């Protein structure tokens, strides 16, 4: 589904990604862990073309999306992204947030989009918040709206960028539960997270990144039970 080949990303002289190779198959939940500053978020943002890679290629469903002639808007329609800081549109209700892209980008009819939007908000457990503005929602509720908003575009892959990092601890679970359901439904997911319990339980694959490189890669449970790289061991010891 996604294949990343020798990806480099520099900000000025700082090299954040130093040659990443990664393959994500359909239906996999690829969890990305590692210390802050290791390049996890940048990697995810490159996949969504929010950052322009310095060199290397990213293939999405067989197409090189880093090529010049690629229509970024079309690629992004097929990749859902959820951000750490929610980034809900504050001037729209929860439902408004969910329907704006299907209506304006996919040209879906408004009532059809709303019907689907209500369904999605129901799925993330926010039936009673449909007409509420983001300022009236808790962090966990905001993030669930953001997930519904991304799902409304029927993406083939979902990207999660530390989506629980800005949440109060008691609100983390409600968001992770939605993500678990999504994983169970067969969605292909790339998840940057510090939630090790989630990574172990839901991640089918896991990579450990440090200083712009993938140091360890494999099945999530294997890495948690039996980390091989010394830095992975040190990291897991520190966070578990």
């Amino acid at each position, binding site marked *: 589904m996604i294949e990343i080949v020798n990806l480099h990303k520099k900000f000025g002289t700082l090299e954040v990604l130093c040659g990443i190779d990664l393959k994500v198959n359909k239906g996999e939940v690829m969890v990305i862990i590692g210390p802050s500053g290791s390049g996890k978020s940048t990697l995810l943002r490159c996949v969504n073309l929010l950052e322009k890679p310095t060199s290397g290629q990213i293939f999405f469903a067989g197409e090189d999306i880093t090529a010049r002639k690629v229509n*970024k808007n079309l690629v992004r329609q097929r990749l859902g992204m959820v951000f750490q800081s929610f980034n809900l*549109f504050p001037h729209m209700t929860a439902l408004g947030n969910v329907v*704006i892209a299907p209506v*304006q980008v996919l040209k879906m009819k408004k009532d059809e989009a709303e019907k689907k939007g209500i369904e999605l908000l129901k799925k993330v457990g926010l039936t009673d918040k449909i007409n509420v503005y983001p*300022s009236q929602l808790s962090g966990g509720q905001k993030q669930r709206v953001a997930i519904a908003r991304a799902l409304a575009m029927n993406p083939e892959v979902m990207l999660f960028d530390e989506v629980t990092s800005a949440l109060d601890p008691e609100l983390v679970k409600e968001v992770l539960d939605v993500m678990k359901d999504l994983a169970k439904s067969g969605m292909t997911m790339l998840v940057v997270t510090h939630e090790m319990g989630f990574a172990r339980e839901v991640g089918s694959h896991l990579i450990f990144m440090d200083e712009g490189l993938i140091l360890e890669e494999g099945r999530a449970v294997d890495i948690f039970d039996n980390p091989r790289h010394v830095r992975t061991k040190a990291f897991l010891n520190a966070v578990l």
Partner: protein
Amino acid sequence: MQGLIDLVEKYFSISVIKEVLPYLLKGALFTVVFSAASEIIGIVIGLATSVVRVTRIKVLNQLAIVYVDLFRGTPLLMQIIFVYYALPYIGINLPATVAGIAALSINSGAYVTEIFRAGIESIDRGQMEAARSLGMSYIKAMRYIIIPQTIKRVLPPLTNEFVALIKDSSLLSVIAISELLRTAKEMMTWKLNPSSLTAAAILYLVITLPLTRYVSYMEEKLKRSGV
């Protein structure tokens, strides 16, 4: 004591004010119409120019900067005189009313550009990223996500700018437009009594006070909503 009586007689003569009021009201109407028309055109110019400024399209951006610097950095009075008296030499003959609105609009557009630019740039970067990540084009993201949020934020400074424009429209008196100040001056010559100026000042206040009050109210509301 005599000075005080003279002052009241010269500047606060109720009988004179009563007599000139109908004319002044007509002048006030002109002032409102000229200012409102110029503000609307200024907003259209300013919004377009501000989008050029934030997208940083090279040549256009440079032109926009020159435009803003030029019209914010020179006196409006001079701009009005140029549009009305200088342009005819290159074949552009505008009636006073059109020249007046043109000068005010272009001048106000320069200020509005900076208001909108600051407004757009104050919107969190994540808003644009979220919109783009949903597959929206830059234009759509601007139109549906960024600009609507900007409008809310710029309403108070925009209204302040409108208040300034209403007062500045008095400069149109130099090209013989019968707006409020010019009417008041004519009444002063006619009645040999400057009370019409006092009445005109009060009329300016009647127009601007609701607007300035509205700004305070909006600012308070925005502060509370945290948008």
